[in-house]
């Protein structure tokens, strides 16, 4: 009786015991794993360390944004994979956003046919595993494209073939100056908008901000072309015969079918989720808001721009960022169709060559983890900023 009373009443001890037990269990598991790992690695004659990153990789990567061949290091191979992951994620996010917004708005249409079509798009593409969609595009749909000599021709500029999509290459002179001019344009637009806001709030003057911004965005880079010696020309793909029956395209840029399949599948799949977010966001704005806006004499465009969108965006953006993150993580499915992303290049090829399972898997996971965590920190900051400030 006395003992029971003691353990129940002394809250500190009662709280401490389960915590200590949990930590102890966790520690013992970690130590058990670590000792086993050490013994296993010792048996195989490898020691834990990241020195292998600077060793020569001696494998080739089919598609890379930076220079790479077998003589570069594993570290460089990791970078190539990471950049490829980022590339397909950015393309996917861009396409998914456009498609998602269109489908989401279409689902709200008062046109029965459009709403139904959008609804079925969502129901179909959301309920098929992404990996199957990737397989479908890569192994079935894109394999039905013609060979290079019978390519689908877009105005003699770009060619779609079974070997990939050939587009003209941008040949820049003084590309850095052009970039600076773009940055300058964005900075001046930012200050213009601040100035316009001040004018509107203090003097009630409304400046045509949108037209002015567009003007700046076009005129400053244009000036760099005219005055600062920036120039742009195109290198068009040309058909070239390799042998009797084999053709290919020279010059230009080739977008490999793996990238096309992956980007298509990722964006069509993620678009369904973004569409649902958009729909929920717009529906989440109360009817009273629109009616109140109409009653003070705003027109349809103004209602959308000034009343509905700012409120809807507050609902839409957080889950949509989550979808962007999912898309980035899902891009690791690239390993299934041999698009050389981080998982394929590093966690598969490099791991097979070096046998350093623990280091390589940890680096890969940590990269994704730090990406996720940094985005969620950004999201929390955004949510705090956007939260309705009640007085």
């Amino acid at each position: 009786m006395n003992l029971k009373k003691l353990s129940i009443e002394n809250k500190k001890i009662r709280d401490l015991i389960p915590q200590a037990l949990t930590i102890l269990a966790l520690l013992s598991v970690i130590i058990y794993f670590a000792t086993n790992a050490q013994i296993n690695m010792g048996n195989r004659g490898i020691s834990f360390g990241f020195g292998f990153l600077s060793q020569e990789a001696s494998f080739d990567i089919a598609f890379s944004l930076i220079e790479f061949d077998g003589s570069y290091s594993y570290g460089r191979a990791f970078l190539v994979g990471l950049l490829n992951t980022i590339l397909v994620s950015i393309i996917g996010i861009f396409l998914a956003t456009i498609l998602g917004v269109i489908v989401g708005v279409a689902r709200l249409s008062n046109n029965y046919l459009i709403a139904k079509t959008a609804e079925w798009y969502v129901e179909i593409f959301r309920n098929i595993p992404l990996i199957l969609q990737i397989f479908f595009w890569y192994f079935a749909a894109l394999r039905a494209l013609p060979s290079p000599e019978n390519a689908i021709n877009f105005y003699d500029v770009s060619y779609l073939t079974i070997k990939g999509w050939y587009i003209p290459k941008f040949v820049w002179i003084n590309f850095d100056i052009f970039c600076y001019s773009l940055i300058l344009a964005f900075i001046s637009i930012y200050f213009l908008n601040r100035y316009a806001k001040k004018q509107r709030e203090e003097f009630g003057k409304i400046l045509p901000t949108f037209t002015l911004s567009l003007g700046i965005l076009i005129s400053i880079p244009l000036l760099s072309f005219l005055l600062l010696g920036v120039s742009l020309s195109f290198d068009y793909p040309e058909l070239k015969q390799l042998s009797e029956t084999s053709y290919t395209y020279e010059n230009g840029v080739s977008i490999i079918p793996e990238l096309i399949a992956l980007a298509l599948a990722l964006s069509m799949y993620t678009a369904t989720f973004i569409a649902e977010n958009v729909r929920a966001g717009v529906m989440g704005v109360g009817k009273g808001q629109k009616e109140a806006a109409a009653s003070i004499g705003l027109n349809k465009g103004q209602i959308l721009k000034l009343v509905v969108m700012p409120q809807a965006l507050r609902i839409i953006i957080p889950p949509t960022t989550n979808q962007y993150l999912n898309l980035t993580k899902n891009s690791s499915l690239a390993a299934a169709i041999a698009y050389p992303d981080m998982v394929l290049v590093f966690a598969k090829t490099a791991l097979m060559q070096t046998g350093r399972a623990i280091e390589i898997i940890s680096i890969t996971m940590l990269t994704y983890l730090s990406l996720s965590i940094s985005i969620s920190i950004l999201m929390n900051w955004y949510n705090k900023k956007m939260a309705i400030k009640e007085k």
Partner: protein
Amino acid sequence: MILNNLKPTKDKINTFLPLGSIFVIFAFLDVLTNTFLNYNITGFLPQTLNYFFPLLLGYIGLYLIRIEFSGNRFLDKLNKNINSSNFNAFLTLLILFIIIKAISPLMNWLILEANFVGSSKDDCTGNGACWVFIKVWFNRLMYGLYPDVEQWRVNSAFLLLFALVGIAFFVPQKIKKYFIIFLLFVYPFIGIKLLSGGSFGLVYVETAAWGGLSLTFIISAFAILFCFPIGVFLALGRRSSLPAIRYISIGFIELWRGVPLITVLFMAAVMFPMFLPDGTFIDKLIRVLIAITLFEAAYMAEVVRGGLQALPKGQYEAAKSLGMGYWRMNVLIILPQALKLVIPGIANTLLALVKDTPLIFVVGLMELAGMIGLAKTNPKWLGMAMEGYVFAGLVFWIICYAMSRYSQNLEKKLSTER
């Protein structure tokens, strides 16, 4: 003046309605004959115009019949739903024409010109899909490399499961509890024994031979079974007032949620064996099951946490004031309400789990999608990727769509007004 006369109004309905209808009907007739009868009514027009002619015609027709408050109920309904403005009319026509144009090649490929009879690729002579491929491989797609003579075991394991679940719905409330306990704690062992064999006179079948759609079900069922309780514990841990438990839970959840499943499976395949004493071997399927379970449990935990947070504080306080301890409070008061709140989220997590199962190709296990990959690379059946993936997509779609529908119904049934 002329423009005013052209505006469709109610008093001129007798002129505008027939006129507009003729335009619309003619537009559809043009598209239909073009697609199905291969006859082009408007062939006399220049080619570029010819293509858009039905669109233009239909557009004019829809404009003419857009009469507000016409008094004709059908017309009003039509105008309201698909013809409320110029833009809507255009989109309506576009969608209808695309559907008409697409349905004919699609039908031809899927059914009309497809091949159903035969036993080899040479029997596929038509232009359409070669469903013979699916027919011949059907057994493999369902059971993987499981030996033909032993497949009754897979069937009976699933039949037993369905029978038990079915009976559990009908037995009286008193016995139901025992049924569910049996289902959750005894049946899994019976099922595993039945599938793997090795005793009771059953031939041993190694897990590498398991595959096809049945493997999808096996993995989903086990992962669902285990990830749910782990997820609930993690959610409670994350809301715990004990800092050590809270931070460990947070770390665990965020670790799994931050990485793609494919890297987790890689980890289970190549990294996990390094952590075990030399010589120990854990079956591939079990490693994969553990990996998927822990991964989905982290997502489940976040869903459950959403439900816990949504409950008003009064519920906790009321439970405590009745003298309930932590576990009694959570099991009897908090969790039943919290879980009910997040049924859609739970269903979505389970749906994601089912959709993630094809990823086990990473470790060399082949469920439905993996078996199709194997079948389409068979030298006798090259070029069957389209049929294979359309079939697999359809099967997965039916499963997932049914699940999402069921969860929506459940949500409606369980919703209690607050």
